[in-house]
Every structure is written in C-alpha cells, then in structure tokens.
C-alpha cells in the first residue's frame, strides 16, 4: 500500500488541473466541492500509506519512490521522487487533514465571492506544492515545493487585489520570502558542491566528508530560508500584513501549514544540525526571542486576526526553539497541535468576521458567545489549548518544548515561560473582548463592508452554516485531545517520539529528567497557563480599554517593521536612488545603451545587405563559397 | 594515341556533314538567280498572305503542356536501364516498375482531373477551389477510358 504514496500529491494536482481549465464552468459551489474532494481523497490515501508504514518494523520505515529523472546535465542528476518516512507522512497527514477541513470551511466562507473557482484553484495548487515540499526525496524538489507554496501564498494574500492593502501585503510577503529563498538557493549550491548530490539520504550519508565550516554555512543558510518562510526575527512583519488575505487562507497557509515549512526543513536536516551545535544554538535563540516578541506584540493588537498572526509568529518561535534545542519531536509535536488550535482559532475568527460583517476590530465586538454558541465554545477550546491549560493539547506540546529548552540553558526556559504566560494572557484578552462582556456593537448601525459599500441591514450575529461549523468542531476536538499522542511521564506513552525515532532519533538531544522532574515541569506549566488566563480575566472581563496595557511600541510590534523600513528599505532606496541616478544613468546605462545602440545600429546596417534583389543574395552565397574554398585551399597549401 | 583512333570515324562524319552543308549553301548562292520581289521577301506561310501578326505571347497553356511533357518525358530515363536488365530483375523488377508506373499514372490522373490537359482557347485552368462541375464520370471521360461518350 505504500506504493500508493504517489497519489498523495497527484490528487490535489489533478484537482488543480481540472479547476484551472474547467473551474469557471463548474462554478459555485461545484468547484469548491471538487477541490475539497480531491484533498480529502489525498488525506484518505495518506492515512492508508501511514497505516501501511506503521505496520513495518521501525527500522524499515523509510521508502524512496523514484518517479523519473527530472533533469540532468553532467554529473548533476535531479530526480523527482518522494521519500516516505515517519516524518514526511506525519506532515502529509496533518497537511491533508487540516486542508480538507479548511477547504470545506471555505465553501461556506467564500460563498459570495465572484472569484470562487479561482480561490479553490489556488488552494489545490497550494496543497500540491506543500505536499511536494514535505514528500520530496531531494532538496531541489523540496525547493520547487517551497517556491510553489510561496507563489500560492502570494496569489492568495493578494486574492482581493483590488484592495490596496491586500496587493501590497502580497508584495511584501513575496519580498520577505525572497530574502529567505536566496539563502536556501545558495545552500543548495553549497550542498551539491560539497556532497555531489541533492538527495536527502545521499547527502546525509556523505556529511562525514564535509568540513564543519561548510556545514555551519549550509545550516545557517537553510535557516535563513526558514526564517523568511516561517516569519522569524527579523523577517516576520510580512505575516501580520498577510492577514489581508481571506481568513481560510490565513488559517491554512499562515498558521497551519506553509509557515511551518521552515520548522519541517530544520527537522529534515537534523543530521546536519546535529553536527553543528553552534548553528543549532543560533536557531534556538532566534526562536526564543521571536516567541517573546510575537507574544508581546499580540498583547496590544486590536484586529482579531492580527492577534492571531503575532501569536503564530510567537508559536513558530517556540518550534524553532525546540528544533534548535535538538528536540525535533517536540517541534513536530507543537507543529501538529498548533496546526489544530491555530486553524481552529482562525476559522473561528473567520466566523466572527462573517457575523460582524467584515469588521475585524475586537474593540467593536463583545458578548458574541451567547449568539454564536458553537463558535464561542470551540474558540474557548482553542484558547485553552494555546494557553497550555491542562489537559488541552497545547499544555503537552509546549511543556515538551520548555522542558527541552531548560536542558539547553535555563535562560531559554525563562524566555519561553514568560512568553507562555503572555500567550495565555493575550488570547484571554481576545476571548473576553470578542465573546464576553458587553456588546459594543449595535444591531441597527449601518456597517460598511470591505469594499466601502453601505449595507442597509443591521447585524444579526449567528453561527455559520454547517460547512463552516463542522470543521470548527472537528478541529476543536483535535485541539482538545491532540496532546495525547505524546505524553511524558512514561516511556510507553511517548507515541510520537517512538514513531519519529527512525528519522530524528540519532540526532535527538537526550535529556533525562526523572519522573519527579517531569511532574514539576508540568505543574509549573499549568500554573503559568492558569495565571495567564486569570490575569486576562481580571483585566478584560469588565473593561474594553486599558491603554497602559496596550503600549504603542507593542502595537507596532516593537517597531521592527518600521525599523526595517527605515534602516533597510530606506537605506536601500537611497542607495538605489544613488545607483539609479549616478551609477546607473552614467555608467551602466551608458554601457547598456551604448551596447543597445551599437546593436541597433549594426542591425540597421546589416539589414541593408538584404537588398531584395535575388542576384545580390546569390552574390552573398558565392562570396561565402569563395571564402570557404579559399580557406580550404590555404589549408591544403600549408 | 590509341584512344583517339576510335573517334576517327566520328570526326570524318563530322567533316563530311559540315562540308555538305556548306557546299549546298555556297552552291545555291552561286547558282540561283537573284531577282527579289516583295512577295518573295515576305515570310513563308504556305503560300498564303499572312492575315495578321502572330500573337506576341503564347498562352500559358502552352508552357503548361510543355512542362508536363518534360516531366513525363524524363520518367522514361528510368525505363531504359530497367528494360536493359529486365530479365535478370525478374518479378522484383516488375513490381518496382509497376509501383513506378502507378505513381506516374496517379500524377497524370491528377493533372487530368484538374483540367491541365484540356486544350483550347477558351477554357482556363480552373482554380482548385472551384471545381463544381467535376465528377468521377467527367474525369474518367477525359482520361479516355469511357471512349464511347468521349465524342
């Protein structure tokens, strides 16, 4: 059954092909159903392959399925094939699973959009690219998927490109990602140069022959790629802006899947990181700082989605903290649970936005829990999960991360723990402002929709249709129970760790805590989470405005965006201006124009040879002939 | 020197022919009376006074037939060597030459069907796209197999 693995990416691709050519004809909602069916079918195949893989002995849980040689030249051979191992199948399973739910949700969410089929076309293409990224058996194919998800992300952020903010957010995402991609690309060249191969298994088997400086360079360059894609410091501002895209996109791409690609990459190259502890430390520290910055920024946001965006940045930071600490299982564990609860929170916020007629300001909400019970309850579960309240999933996964951070250095643990407290707090703030407290909206007030049109009717918030509710419920269940796939306390309960062991086992940093210590960590985590929740409750239960707690520098996310704008963007603009006015126009332009003019001039000259007279053409032919024969005869003579 | 010997009869024949032609002209100049009249100066046209000037250009049809002649004429080149060794080639040669003839015949059929061989002052080569009047029967008739109706 493992051989069916090729179907996993092919099905969404087929969906894309059909939608691309016939999408408009299928229309609304058939196009959406087709897309959903394709991804769901892919999920089914994934589960089948997953089970088949599970039935193998742990040592034999690695299969390479080579499809064909993609292209080659000289000793370079780039194949297209997939690597089926516990890591890739875990990724594939949650990607297809979460994607199926979000596709289903989108059928309802995008119901009134004119570009309905196009949305699903992109969505299917995205799933295909994402699956290629995680399933590829070599770096180049992964990079293909990496670029593919980037492009889809660009298309989908800028989906409503008539809105300025969406269009510029799309561009911003593209630019930030390109910076990271450049690192990835250079890393690719280095890898090939040093190992002569692109295939994961071959590359990892030849690491012994590669010097440490090269390995550090490769690791850090790949990490640069991950920083761009996964919105880490300093390349995170794009993620907040990316919220201009449709909410299902935020849920799928900018929370559950694409942004975790960087974490996946770090886990995939664990043999390299294992050999380069210094690079790993850099990763861990960047992750920790990002976790803190993201969490603090989330505390002061008023846009329901931006809170979640910064929260995602923060959570991704945790994942890198884990990967950098050598705790790849913890990273993957957090990635999975995060996918569940963050997708849940985003979809919930989407329902709220729908209900509030496109208003996203949490200061204008309140008291929705009673009107939207399903959304309210599932959002609550999401909040508890992310906050780390036991026994919800976040408690287990974040606990795992923090514990491993402690093993590296307690300083990392402190940063992580503070961020965890903040996490519980800012999500509480959001929950209270949106679902509880007084209604700060009026039913009668005329509301403007996203296009600035005045809508006549008032607000009647209610739970959405079943397409949208069902994914909420499923995700809430997963968010609540997802933590049980990897419980501490007893070696028999660490299911995920044992499952991933063949891939990351040799590189795992072995930390041995006694059961007592494990309990201690758990209790501390629980206390932190509950404290955060309680603080949020005490502050935000009754009031909706506490300027002291929402400082401007946090609202502006530590001014990173503006700082980068000033420092990098303006400097480079100035430099570019200088180049444009002085270097470009005087020197480069001069040269280029000179060459262009010369080319054009010689073209004009040469075309005159073409007189139109057949005799002249024959003369040209004879002239060539004479020169040739003369040359030959000279050679004979010599 | 031996190789030139074989050319001697040809050379002799050549000289004889030249001598005879030259001799005839010279003899006629010398012997014939020279009394020109306008009737005698006129171009010879079977004794009839020319009614009008000959047309300056030949109709296209003329060239067409000439071209068709050339191409069918040259096909015969291949029949000569074939005929020489016909016996040795046996059935293989027969098959090949039938294929050859069939190809040539199909070409002829095409020409006939498109009216390339319709000779006459009025009719023109019809454009390929306006062959409304053509039928199987008419083509067969032109080829001449249905000789009964040909008249």
């Amino acid at each position, binding site marked *: 059954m493992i051989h069916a693995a090729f179907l996993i990416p092919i099905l969404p691709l087929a969906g894309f092909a059909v939608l691309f050519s016939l999408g408009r004809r299928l229309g609304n909602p058939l196009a959406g159903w087709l897309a959903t069916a394709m991804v769901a079918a892919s999920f089914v195949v994934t589960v089948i392959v997953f089970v088949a893989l599970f039935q193998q002995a742990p040592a034999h849980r690695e299969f390479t399925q080579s499809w064909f040689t993609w292209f080659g030249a*000289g000793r370079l051979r780039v194949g297209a094939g997939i690597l089926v191992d516990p890591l890739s199948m875990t990724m594939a399973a949650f990607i297809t699973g979460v994607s199926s739910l979000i596709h289903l949700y989108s059928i309802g969410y995008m119901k009134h959009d004119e570009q309905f089929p196009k949305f699903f076309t992109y969505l299917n293409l995205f799933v295909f690219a994402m699956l290629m990224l995680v399933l590829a058996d070599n770096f180049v194919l992964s990079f293909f998927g990496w670029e593919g998800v980037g492009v889809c992300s660009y298309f989908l952020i800028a989906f409503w490109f008539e809105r300025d903010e969406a269009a510029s957010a799309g561009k911003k995402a593209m630019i930030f990602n390109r910076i990271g991609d450049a690192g990835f690309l250079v890393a690719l060249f280095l890898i090939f140069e040093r190992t002569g191969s692109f295939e994961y298994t071959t590359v990892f088997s030849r690491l012994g022959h590669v010097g440490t400086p090269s390995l550090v360079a490769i690791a850090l360059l790949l990490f640069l790629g991950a920083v761009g894609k996964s919105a880490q410091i300093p390349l995170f501002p794009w993620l907040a802006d990316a919220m201009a895209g449709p909410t299902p996109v935020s849920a799928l791409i900018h929370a559950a899947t694409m942004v975790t690609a960087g974490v996946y990459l770090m886990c995939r190259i664990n043999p390299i990181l294992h050999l380069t502890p210094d690079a790993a430390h850099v990763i861990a520290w960047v992750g920790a700082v990002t976790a803190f910055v993201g969490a603090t920024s989330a505390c002061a946001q008023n846009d329901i989605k931006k809170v979640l965006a910064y929260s995602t940045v923060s959570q991704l930071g945790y994942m890198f903290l884990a990967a950098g600490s050598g705790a790849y299982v913890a990273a993957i564990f957090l990635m999975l649970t995060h996918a569940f609860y963050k997708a849940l929170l985003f979809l919930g916020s989407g329902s709220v936005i729908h209900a509030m007629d496109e208003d996203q300001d949490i200061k204008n909400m309140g008291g929705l829990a009673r009107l939207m019970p399903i959304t309210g309850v599932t959002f609550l579960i999401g909040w508890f999960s992310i906050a780390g309240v036991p026994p919800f999933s976040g408690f287990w996964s974040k606990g795992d991360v923090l514990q491993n951070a402690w093993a590296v250095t307690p300083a990392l643990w402190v940063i992580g723990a503070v961020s965890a407290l903040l996490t519980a707090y800012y999500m509480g703030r959001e929950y209270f402002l949106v679902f509880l407290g007084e209604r700060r909206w009026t039913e009668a007030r005329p509301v403007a929709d996203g296009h600035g049109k005045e809508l006549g009717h008032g607000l009647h918030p209610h739970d959405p249709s079943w397409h949208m509710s069902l994914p909420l419920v499923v995700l809430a269940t997963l968010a609540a129970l997802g933590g049980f796939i990897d419980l501490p306390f007893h070696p028999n309960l660490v299911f995920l760790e044992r499952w991933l062991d063949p891939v990351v086992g040799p590189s795992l940093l072995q930390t041995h805590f006694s059961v007592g210590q494990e309990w201690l960590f758990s209790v501390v985590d629980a206390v932190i989470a509950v404290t955060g929740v309680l603080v949020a409750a005490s502050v935000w239960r009754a009031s909706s405005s506490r300027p002291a707690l929402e400082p401007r520098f946090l609202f502006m996310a530590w001014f990173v965006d503006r700082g980068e704008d000033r420092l990098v963007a303006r400097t480079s603009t100035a430099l570019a201006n200088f180049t444009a006015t002085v270097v470009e126009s005087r020197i480069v332009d001069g040269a280029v124009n000179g060459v262009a003019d010369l080319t054009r001039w010689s*073209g004009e000259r040469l075309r005159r040879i073409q007189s139109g007279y057949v005799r002249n053409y024959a003369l040209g032919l004879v002239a*060539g*002939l004479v020169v040739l024969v003369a040359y030959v005869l000279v050679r*004979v003579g010599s | 020197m031996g190789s030139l010997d074989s050319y001697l009869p040809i050379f002799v024949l050549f000289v004889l022919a030249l001598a005879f032609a030259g001799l005839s002209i010279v003899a006629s100049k010398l012997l014939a009376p020279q009394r020109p009249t306008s009737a005698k100066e006129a171009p010879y046209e079977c004794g009839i006074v020319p009614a009008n000037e000959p047309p300056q250009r030949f109709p296209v049809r003329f060239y067409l037939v000439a071209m068709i002649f050339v191409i069918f004429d040259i096909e015969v080149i291949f029949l000569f060597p074939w005929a020489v060794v016909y016996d040795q080639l046996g059935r293989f040669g027969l098959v*090949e030459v039938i*294929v050859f003839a069939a190809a040539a015949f199909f070409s002829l059929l095409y020409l006939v069907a498109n009216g390339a061989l319709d000779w006459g002052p009025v009719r023109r080569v019809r454009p390929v796209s306006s062959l*409304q009047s053509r039928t199987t029967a008419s083509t067969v008739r032109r080829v001449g197999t249905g000789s009964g109706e040909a008249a």
Partner: protein
Amino acid sequence: MTGSTAILASMAAHLLAAGGIAMPRIDYTAILPELILLGGMLVLVLVSSLSPRPLPTEAYATATVGIGIASLVASLVLWRDVSDHGPFTAVARAVNVDGFGVLFLVLVSCILVVAPLLAAGHLRREGVGGCEYYVLALISGSGAMFMATANDLVLIFLALEILSIPLYILAGFDHLRESSGEAAMKYFVLGAFSSAIFVYGIALTYGATGSTNLAQIAAFLARNVVTSDGVLLGGLALLLVGFAFKVAAVPFHMWTPDVYQGSPTPATGFMASMAKAGGFAALLRVFVTTFPTLRGTWQPAIWVIAVLTLVLGAVVALVQSDVKRMLAYSSINHAGFVLLGLQAATARGVAGSVFYLFTYSFLVLGSFAVVSAVGGKGDERHGLERYRGLGRRQPALAVTFAVLLLAQAGAPFTTGFFAKFYVVEAAVSAHSYALAAVAMGTAAVAAFFYLRLVFLMFSDVGRTIPTHEGAATGGTPTDTLEMPSAGGVATLVAAPVAALVEVAEPDPAIVAVSPWVAAGLVLCVATTLVFGVWPQPLVDFAHQATLII
C-alpha cells in the same frame, strides 16, 4: 513522380553498390515510415482526382494527421527495433537505420501530425483548400526522412531535392499574393543554385574517395591520411555550402527573411521546421560521422559560420517591424545555436543539437500558426502594432503566443531553456568558450525582441486596433475564455482548445481561430511546457539516439 524516384533511388543505389546484377533485396520495413508518407500521398492525390466534388480541406488535414500518426507508429516500432537489436543498414546500404536517423523519423512524423492541424484554418480562410498543401507536405516530409537516414551522398542529394522542391511550391502556393510568388522565385533560384553547388561537391568527393557511400568514404578516410587533397576538401566545402543554405546559416541565409515573409504563413512554419530538421540531420551525420578525420579543417569553418549566424540573426531581428520577418531572423539565430552542437562534434553536442531541433520544431510551427491567425484574411497584417493589446482582446491566443515566444527566448520551465542549455553546455565542454559566450550574448539580444512582442501583446493601450475605434470588442477576456466550442467541452484536453477557439470574427480586431488550429496550438504549447518542466525523457531520447550512432 518524386516519390517513385526515391524508391528507384534505393534500387539503383543497390546496383551501384553491387557492381553486377545481384537480386536486389529491399527491407521494406526499414523504410516503412517513408513508404507510409508516399503511399498516403498517392492516395490523397487519387482521392482528390476522383472525388465527385471537392472535399473540404479539413478532410485532407484529418487524413494527413492519420498518415502522420501511422508513420509515427512505424518510426517508434523501428526505434524499438534499433534499441533492441542495434543499428543496421538496409536497401543495399543506402539507408541507415540507427537511433539518430529514427529519431528524426519520429520528429518528422510529429511535424506532420501538427502542421496539418495548424494549416487547415488558414487554407480555408484564404480559399486555397484542396489536397495540394498536404500532398506537398507529405512529399517534403518523406524527403526529410530520407535525408536523416541516408547513408549515401547521392541519396542525400535526392532526398534534399524531394524535401526542397515541394517547399518551393509551398512558398508560392498562395497565387493571389504577389509576395508569395516573389518568395517562391527567390527560394527556387537560390535553392536550385545551392543544389547545383551541392551536387558538384558530391562529384568532387566521389572523385577523391571513390565512393558516395558514407560508410565507405569514412572507411577510405580512415585508411588513407588525406589532409591536403584539394579535391576532397573543395568537395567538402561545397557540401557545406549546400547544407548551410538549407539550414539558413550565414552567409548562405539571405533567402530566409524574404521567403519566410512572403510564403503563406503555414507554409513558412512548415518549411522552417522541416527544412531545418532534414538539413541538420544530414549535416550532422555527414560531418560528424563521415568526415571526423577532417575535423581540424571543418571545425574552424563551422565556428565562424556559427558566430556569424548567431550574431546576424539576433541583431537584424532586433530592427524588424514585421513579425514574420522578425521570426525569420530569429530562426537564423536558432540555426546558430544548433550549429553549436555540430561545432563541438561530440556525442553530447550532437545530442544537444538534436534536442534543440526537436523542441524548436514545435515552437516555430506554433508561432507561425499564431501569426497566421493574427494576420487575418489576406495573410498580410503582420506588423508589430497589430499585436498591441492582443492580450486583452484574445487572452488565450496571446498567452499561447507568449509561451511560444518565451520558450524561443529560452525562458526556464520551457523546452527552449533546456535546448539552449544543452548546446551551450556541449560547447563549453568542448572548450569552445568564446562561441558559448557569443551564443549567450545573442540569446540576451534575442530575448529583447521576443519580450518586446510579449509586452506589446499585454500592453493595455488599444482594446481595439486604431482603424476600428468605437467598435465593440465583442467580448471581455472572460467572455472569450468562456466561449464554448460547438461540440461541448467535456475533457481536460478540450478545455484549452475551447479557450483558444474563436468561431467568427465578430469584430475586425478579433481574429478567427478554428478548432483545428486551436488543437494544434495546444499540442505545441503542451510539448513546450511538459518537456520544459520535465525534459529528461526527451534528453534521454536524444542521447540514446546519438550514442547508438
């Protein structure tokens, strides 16, 4: 007639080789693809002669596509034969059935499948339907096949003529246009001239080596060290002129722009792909496998010709304002790239050239088909300005053209990129660094004029062309995309075709695209993109072909 000469050629070549009259044995399966084309051609002639009323041009197009597919199948069977049992010679060693030759059989068959589709619409529009275009194309195709498989200089000459003479007629095919006649005259006079030079070259080579059989010539040259025989080298020079004329290499290219511009557009596309395929096939075989010992002499000559071809093609294309003429110069530039592989004279170089020809054939066929459609009735509106705003009027057509042009420019994810990559790589690995650099430079220049056309198509000015201001465009882009074809669209393949089809010309600015042309274009674009993303099968094909030599 020409067909039968080809058959007889093999017969006589046998006599020639045997010296006496031995019972000739002809392996008909070895030349089955050619026989299919010629037989099919004869059937078309017969049917058109005897049919009670003129058949629609589409009927002939369908038949030709069928014949092309049949010969494709036969070629592939031969390919399997060759891969399993190795190459062999047939028909008294006049025909070489090896991977290299069979690959070109496949290519020619493919061209004959695509070209009729692309021509049908044009022929109907211009009122020159009938069997002639297809019959001539089939004869020409068989000539190209014989050129690629010929193992005898005399057969190469015959094949060259069988390839060329129908092309002369195709150039002058549209008797209503003056430029068509002019093109035919120029092509014919210069073509016949170069053929005469070529055949004189054969005669000299024959005199110097005592044979016209390529294998025997090679064997003779291997036995005797002939580096300073004036007759032989002179013959070689004349042969090179003949080939260089056929493939439009500078300075033997001068017919190209005029002929490409004047010929009916589908004929241009056909001759560009077919003449280059046939010409280069024979050129590569003769120079690389027959005269390797004289490499020291001909490689520098090819080097110079390649540089001239690359530069002149790109530079003069830059200043053209007529799209057909621009594409003609660009085809000269492409010929220069193919020469890169020949100059390298290595297995890798030949494989690169073969790959280039394979991909280029589809690009040029498709490009000229688009030009034909845009040219409109009369086939005369080929100015650059005509393309302004095409992306808005007919997005599907514009995107198709853009893909084909970008591929010609060598953009990644198209076959054009890998084609250029492999020949340049071959040149580099043969240490022809300067030549590779020149090639890259001209590719940059060439990219400019391709991109200019692409930008022009998608520039926003002028939803209608100036002369028809105020007239409704007959559809926004989405309307055009949605225009259904008559038969209804059910399959994946049919959808892009339907997107391209433009049934009538509701507005003068909208050009008609028949379903036939649309299908052909989809084939061209599909090959370009599929093998552009996944070139390996084609690369392997080309490499195998070359290694089997």
